[in-house]
């Protein structure tokens, strides 16, 4: 490719561009609804994701009612139960967590943290949100179509997903696939923005190694998502064709309710490979932004640089790369070629090493820090505990032979809720408490926040920690009722009831949070520009909330890394990234 000089574009560092061409909204509609401003799009993403997430939360209550008190609630039948678990899982993993971390936090934080005026393709960014909204609406519509939403489990395994023995076989599954396809298209538009903004629109002086780990996490996760989502796209399209046109990509010869079906020759395992080729990176697509954000929360509130920044960056990149070669650990008991087990168990357990390094560095950051136990920090600590717990149980399930008895039991359910449910949600909540002042200009209420933290953290732990032991006992997952089984003692039913009660309590405590969000919007204490005395660029904007174009007349110039906290010799315990060095600065006593 020939590189041609483009007049006025190439070779000029962004800081010297006098007036960056931005789309300027002219009306209320283009300012708040069809906005091309990444900050508004971020809020739109976050609100939509939270709204559909609340639906998924209510679904989890219904599931827990059934599991805790089987036979008590006549309005839940076996079909509905399967529909609830399916929609709960799909919404939480994709439409809530992925959309919130990348579409929400990514949109808000990337331009601000790298010192850009906006995303590089604002129009495409706006489209991304609207396609996402459409995907969510299509998904939500399945609750109202004949037959209801699909009950195939969030993994949508064929042949079951498209056969008549599964609820939602008429419309539910078709709309689910369509919604996923839309989501992926919408995400790709957004993802291009996030990646190119980080690559190209960083302000002067913002080298890669000066990026906050939040940006590293979101950036790496986006790259992974861009490469992994096509696998879900391919699987969805092919399954949709199997369902609509009667092709046999995934469908073998089979007898459907006593009659021989028209299908033949297809491979259900092919779907599983494609699904998990997306599905495993998806875990890290959710986890890496959480890793990044939590690093910044800990560093800011412990007033200490993140310990081992370079190792943290390398670990993010290593985890991102490794996560593409571990997918089949979800398929140890799928009947795939057994020799694959050695390879995938090894790669899976290797990925524990960079992950463990991240954990060590988080807790080592606390060592000799100046720990302010504010709400975001509490959530960060809660994240560490739940993530360590969930990560360690991952070592059970990743180790092929240990997975054999534990797969498809409640142990798996407990594990993935701990590691990619509770842990990332801890970060999401902590991050909301952390950045809410920047988004709205007001602080969230501290007392309500602490109450919210303790109920959510302890409650979630009480839900999911004992659940592992139900799995160890052998209680299978996705069961409407446990029924009579000699190996399940009555105490297991009591534990289920206990878990349900705690789950409902934790669920309702989120209403306190919603109240706090709304109330503080109007009555919260004024935050000022930098309430946490943080170093990163988003806290250095001339206005709070940041105005259109983020930076006023001139882009910030970056002189230092993102973690200059408690630097010896400095007057304050933080030095913002855009503060020029003093000529007389003392040499830093850096250990290396």
């Amino acid at each position, binding site marked *: 490719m020939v590189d041609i000089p483009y007049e006025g574009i190439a070779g000029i560092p962004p800081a010297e561009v006098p007036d960056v061409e931005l789309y300027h909204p002219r009306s209320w509609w283009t300012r708040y609804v069809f906005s091309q401003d990444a900050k508004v799009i971020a809020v739109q993403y976050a609100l939509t994701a939270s709204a559909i997430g609340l639906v998924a939360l209510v679904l989890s209550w219904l599931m827990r009612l059934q599991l805790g008190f089987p036979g008590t609630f006549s309005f839940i039948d076996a079909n509905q139960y399967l529909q609830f678990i399916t929609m709960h899982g799909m919404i939480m993993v994709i439409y809530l967590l992925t959309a919130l971390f990348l579409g929400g936090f990514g949109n808000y934080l990337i331009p601000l943290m790298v010192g850009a005026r906006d995303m590089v393709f604002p129009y495409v960014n706006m489209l991304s949100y609207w396609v996402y909204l459409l995907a969510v609406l299509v998904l939500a519509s399945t609750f109202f179509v004949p037959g209801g939403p699909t009950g195939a489990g969030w993994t949508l395994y064929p042949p079951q997903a498209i056969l008549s023995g599964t609820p939602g076989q008429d419309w539910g599954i078709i709309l689910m696939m369509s919604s996923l396809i839309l989501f992926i298209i919408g995400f790709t538009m957004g993802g291009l923005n996030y990646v190119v903004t980080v690559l190209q629109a960083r302000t002067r002086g913002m080298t890669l190694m000066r990026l906050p780990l939040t940006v590293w996490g979101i950036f790496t996760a986006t790259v992974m998502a861009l490469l992994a989502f096509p696998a879900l796209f391919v699987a969805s399209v092919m399954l949709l064709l199997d369902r609509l046109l009667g092709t046999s990509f995934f469908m073998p010869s089979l007898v459907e309710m006593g009659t021989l079906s028209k299908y033949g020759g297809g491979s259900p395992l092919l779907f599983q490979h494609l699904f998990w080729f997306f599905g495993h990176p998806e875990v890290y697509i959710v986890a890496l932004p959480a890793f990044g954000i939590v690093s910044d929360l800990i560093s800011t509130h*412990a007033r200490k640089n993140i310990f081992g920044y370079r190792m943290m960056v390398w670990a993010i990149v290593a985890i991102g790369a490794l996560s593409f070669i571990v997918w089949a650990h979800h398929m140890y008991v799928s009947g795939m070629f057994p020799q694959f087990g050695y390879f995938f168990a090894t790669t899976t357990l290797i990925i524990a090493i960079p992950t463990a390094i991240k954990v060590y560095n988080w807790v080592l950051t606390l060592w000799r820090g100046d720990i302010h136990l504010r709400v975001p920090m509490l959530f960060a600590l809660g994240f560490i505990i739940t993530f360590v717990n969930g990560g360690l149980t991952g070592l059970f399930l990743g180790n092929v032979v240990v997975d054999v008895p534990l797969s498809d039991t409640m142990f798996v359910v407990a594990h993935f809720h701990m590691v990619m449910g509770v842990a990332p949600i801890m970060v999401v909540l902590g991050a909301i408490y952390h950045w809410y002042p920047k988004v709205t200009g007001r602080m969230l209420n501290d007392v309500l926040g602490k109450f919210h933290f303790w109920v959510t953290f302890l409650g979630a732990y009480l839900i999911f920690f004992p659940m592992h032991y139900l799995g160890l006992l052998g209680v299978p997952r996705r069961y409407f009722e446990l029924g009579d089984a000699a190996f399940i003692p009555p105490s297991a039913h009591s534990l289920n009831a206990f878990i349900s009660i705690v789950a409902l309590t934790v669920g309702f405590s989120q209403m306190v949070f919603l109240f706090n969000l709304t109330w503080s919007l109007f009555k919260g204490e004024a935050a000022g520009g930098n309430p946490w005395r943080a170093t990163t660029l988003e806290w250095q904007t001339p206005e709070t909330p940041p105005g259109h174009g983020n930076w006023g007349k001139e882009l910030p110039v970056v002189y230092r890394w993102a973690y200059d906290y408690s630097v010896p010799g400095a007057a304050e315990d933080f030095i913002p990234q855009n503060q020029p060095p003093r000529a007389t600065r003392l040499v830093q006593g850096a250990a290396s």
Partner: protein
Amino acid sequence: MVVALILLLVAIGSVLFHLYSPWWWTPIATNWAYIDHTINITFWITGFVFVAVIAFMAYCVFRFHHKEGRRADYNPENKRLEWWLSVGTGVGVAAMLAPGLVVWHQFVTVPADATEVEVMGQQWQWSFRLPGKDGRLGTSDVRNIGSDNPMGLNRDDPHAQDDVVIENGDLHLQVGKPVKVLLRSVDVLHDFYVPEFRAKMDMVPGAVTYFWIKPIRTGTFDVLCAELCGAAHYQMRAKVIVDDEREYHAWLEQQKTFAELSAGKAVVKATYQSGGN
């Protein structure tokens, strides 16, 4: 410091719960005690790491929480510490992985003296098949399935004629005899799951999967389906009964072969054809 104390209590509480939990794995009924040992090793290692990390964190919160005038240390990295921690983690991982892979090797290596048993899953019931006197299972195909041939056996295959077919019944196994369980499904994914056996494997329509076990104690065990298979997934039950040799043979005597079960005309035809071969 309350926060540090609660964090510590979470770790201690988890350990106590682990030690005193009334919910623990079912008494094992097969040779796969190795799997339980591997789980125990993993529990020890991960439990140690869990407690260590949380205790360290709680200590930091206790010792270094904000007080007037405190200033954090400045310490960007410590290569040697990170290096040692990585190596330590690597050793721990290897200590879990190595026994896991060894046991996996045993798990996928079926002993030569294992006899075959077939389990067939369909929405939402189990069927079983044992090789007859010839010791071989006949071939099958979903296209053969009919009301008189629920397992879709191949009528033209002489090996199929003496196969023992168990519809809506329980499976009996003989204690101490290794058995290779062949798994097949005629509609969707299922998973033949007996918690006491520890072994399980998905059943995939269009393919035959397997695992092997050697029952080590007699008893009656619940069979559940462990792979979501539609609306009545939770009701897909059966029983496996592990007998001693005498009881097992007594049971086997009473079972009907495929030829006996097939309705008159079909049997005659099949016998004629197999005789002609």
